C-alpha cells in the first residue's frame, strides 16, 4: 500500500536549514492501522504531509498503491489525494456556514467522476459515523466530537484506500476522543489503511503497529497487541 524509501526533507527556517526527515524507510500494508508517534519537531508532520501528497520529499521514493508519486505534478497529486486519500485534521477544518452534509460532500467537488448520488453517499458516510441526525446542522451547532465525526465522514466519501489522521483527538475531550478512535478502529477492521499521527501514547496504543520518529528517523517499529473496538454506542 505504502512504500517509503529513504525519504528526506529539509526546510529553511530563516537562516537555519532544518532537516525534518533524514532518510525514512518503511512500508505499510493494505488494511493496517499504523500510529506514528514522536515529539513535536520529530518530523512526523512532515512525513504525514509527504504521505498525503501535500508535500514532496527532497530525496527518496514514495509509492502509493504501487505508483511512484515522489515527483508527481500538482494535477496528478491532487487527483490522487482526491481518489485515494482521506484526511482527518486536528482542527477539523470544516467550512463554516455550510451544513454537515455539504461539508461531507466537499471532496466530490474535485472528483473526476460525475456522481449524481452525492447526497446519498454523504448520508451513508454520515451514517457510518452515526451522525445522520445532524446532517443539516452547521459546524458551529455541533460539538467538537461531532465536528470531527463529520470530518471523518468527509474523508470517507470517496471511499479512499488510505486515511491519514493528524492528531485527530488533539482538540477533543477524553470521551469524544474515545469515540473517534473507535470509529477509526472500526474502519481499520473493515479493511481501510489508517495512518494516525499523535504524540499521545494512549491514542497510539489503539493502532496495530507503532512507528516512532525521533529527530527525523524511525527509531522503533513495533506491532501492538490486538485491541478490538469497544462496542458501538459507548462513546
Amino acid at each position, binding site marked *: 500500500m505504502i512504500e517509503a524509501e529513504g525519504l528526506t526533507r529539509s526546510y529553511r527556517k530563516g537562516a537555519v536549514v532544518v532537516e525534518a526527515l533524514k532518510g525514512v524507510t518503511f512500508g505499510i500494508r493494505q488494511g493496517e492501522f499504523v500510529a506514528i508517534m514522536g515529539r513535536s519537531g520529530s518530523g512526523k*508532520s512532515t512525513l504525514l*504531509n509527504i504521505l*498525503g501528497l*501535500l*508535500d514532496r520529499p527532497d530525496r527518496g521514493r514514495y509509492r502509493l498503491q504501487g505508483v511512484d508519486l515522489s515527483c508527481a505534478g*500538482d*494535477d496528478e497529486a*491532487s*487527483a490522487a*489525494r*482526491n*481518489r485515494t486519500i482521506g*484526511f482527518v*485534521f486536528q*482542527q477539523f*477544518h470544516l*467550512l463554516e*456556514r*455550510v451544513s454537515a452534509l*455539504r461539508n461531507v460532500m*466537499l*471532496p*466530490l*467537488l*474535485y*472528483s*473526476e467522476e*460525475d456522481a449524481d448520488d452525492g447526497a446519498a453517499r454523504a448520508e451513508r458516510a454520515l451514517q457510518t459515523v452515526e451522525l445522520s441526525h445532524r446532517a443539516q446542522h452547521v459546524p458551529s451547532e455541533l460539538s467538537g466530537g461531532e465536528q470531527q465525526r463529520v470530518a471523518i465522514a*468527509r474523508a470517507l466519501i*470517496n471511499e479512499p484506500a488510505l486515511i491519514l489522521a493528524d492528531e485527530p483527538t488533539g482538540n477533543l475531550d477524553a470521551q469524544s476522543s474515545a469515540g473517534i478512535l473507535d470509529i477509526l478502529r472500526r474502519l481499520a477492521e473493515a479493511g481501510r489503511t489508517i495512518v494516525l499521527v499523535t504524540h499521545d501514547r494512549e491514542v497510539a496504543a489503539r493502532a496495530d503497529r507503532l512507528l516512532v520518529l525521533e529527530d527525523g528517523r524511525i527509531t522503533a517499529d513495533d506491532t501492538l497487541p490486538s485491541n478490538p473496538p469497544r462496542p458501538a454506542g459507548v462513546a
Partner: protein
Amino acid sequence: MTRSHRITADVLASLLANTQRSILMMLGVAVGVAVLSAVIVISQGTEERIMGLVARHGLDMLMVRAGGEVQVFAPTADRGLTVLLEGDARAIEAEIPNVTMVSVVQNQRDINVVYEDRSVTTRAFGVEPDWMEIRRRDMAEGEFVSETDMAAMSRVVTLGHKVAQALFPEGGAVGRTVRVANDPYVVKGVFTEMGVNAGGDDWDDRIVVPFTTSSRRLFNRPYLEQLVIRTADARQMANTAARVRELLRVRHSIAAGEEDDFFVREPEDVENAALDTSSTLSLLSLAIATVALVAGGLVIMNVMLSAVAQRRHEIGLRRAMGARASDIQRQFLLESLLVALAGGLVGVVAGISVASGLAAAQMVDGRVTWVPFVGALAACTVIGLVFGVYPARRAAAVEPATSLRQQAV
C-alpha cells in the same frame, strides 16, 4: 454535473453563504459602474440634445453661394453670376470625405404665381428631391418634388405656407393648377409654416420646383445660385469647408492670390463651440468614471487579498480534498468575476436611476439606451478578471501543508 460545473456551483453557493464579504466587494464596483452609467446616460442625453440642435439650426450644413465674399449682400441671381455648375456639386460629393450629400439650388426673385383672380410675386427655387432632407422641411399636405418629376422635368410646384394662404385662402391647393411665370404648374404639396429665419429670409414666401424644370424651363439656365452640403460630423465643419474651398478654386481655375468667385458659408461659430464643449465634457466625465472603476477594482483586489489570507485554512483544506492549484485559482477568479458582475448590475441600475432622476428634474440631459448596460458588462468583466488575477494567483500559491497547520487567524 461535470467537475467544472460543480466547482462553479460551489463558488456561487460560497458567495451566497458569505454575504457580508460579497457585498463589501460588490460595493466598490457598484459605485464605479454607477458613475460610469450615469455619465453615459447624461452624455448620451447631451449628445441627443446637441444633435437636435444641429438638425434644427442646420449646424451640419455648409452652403456655397456663387459670387465672392464682398458681394454676398446683393442677390446672386440678379447679378447673373455664371460660375457655379452642377458639376461642382458632383465633384464635392465624390471627392471630399465627411460630405454625405450635396444638393444644387437655383433661385430667382419676382416670379409671378397666379390662381384664378389671385396672384403673388414670390421667390422660386429649383431643387433636387434630397433638398427636402438636407434642409429638413416638412410638408403640411401633398408631396415634395420626386425623382420622377426630375426625370420628366415636370411642371409641378410646392408652395410655401404664405403663398398657399394667399392663393388658396380656403385651402385645397394640392392638385390645382396654378400659373408660374405664365406656364401651368400642378400644385404637388404645401410646406408647413416655417417662419422667418435668423437671416431674415421668410421661408413661407417661397415656391419650389424640380431642379430640371427650373434649369430647362422656368429659368432656362445651367448656372446655380447655391450648393447645399450636408456633412456627417458637424465637428469637422471647418476642415470640410476648407477642402470645399480648395476644390472649387481648382475647378474654377482661380490662380493663387486671386479672390474666390464663390462664398462658402459655415454655420455660426457660437453653436460650433457648443459641440466642442460637449465633447470635452463627456471626455472628462469618462475619465472620472474610469478612475471610479479602477478604484472599484482596487477595492475588489484588496478584499480578495485579505480574503485569501483569511481563508488559508479553507484553501489548504480544498487542496487536501483534491483541488488542484488551478482549481483554487479558478475559484477565486470566478468569485471576483461574479462579484464584479453583480456589483455592475447594482451599479448600472443605481447610475441610470440617479441620472434619470436628475434628467427628470431638468438638471441634466438624460437618455437611456443599451449602451450603459453593455459598457457596464464589459467594464465589470475586465475589472473582475484584471483585479482578480493577482489574488487568485496568491490563493493558488498557498502551501496546503503549512496552511492546514497554522492556528486559525
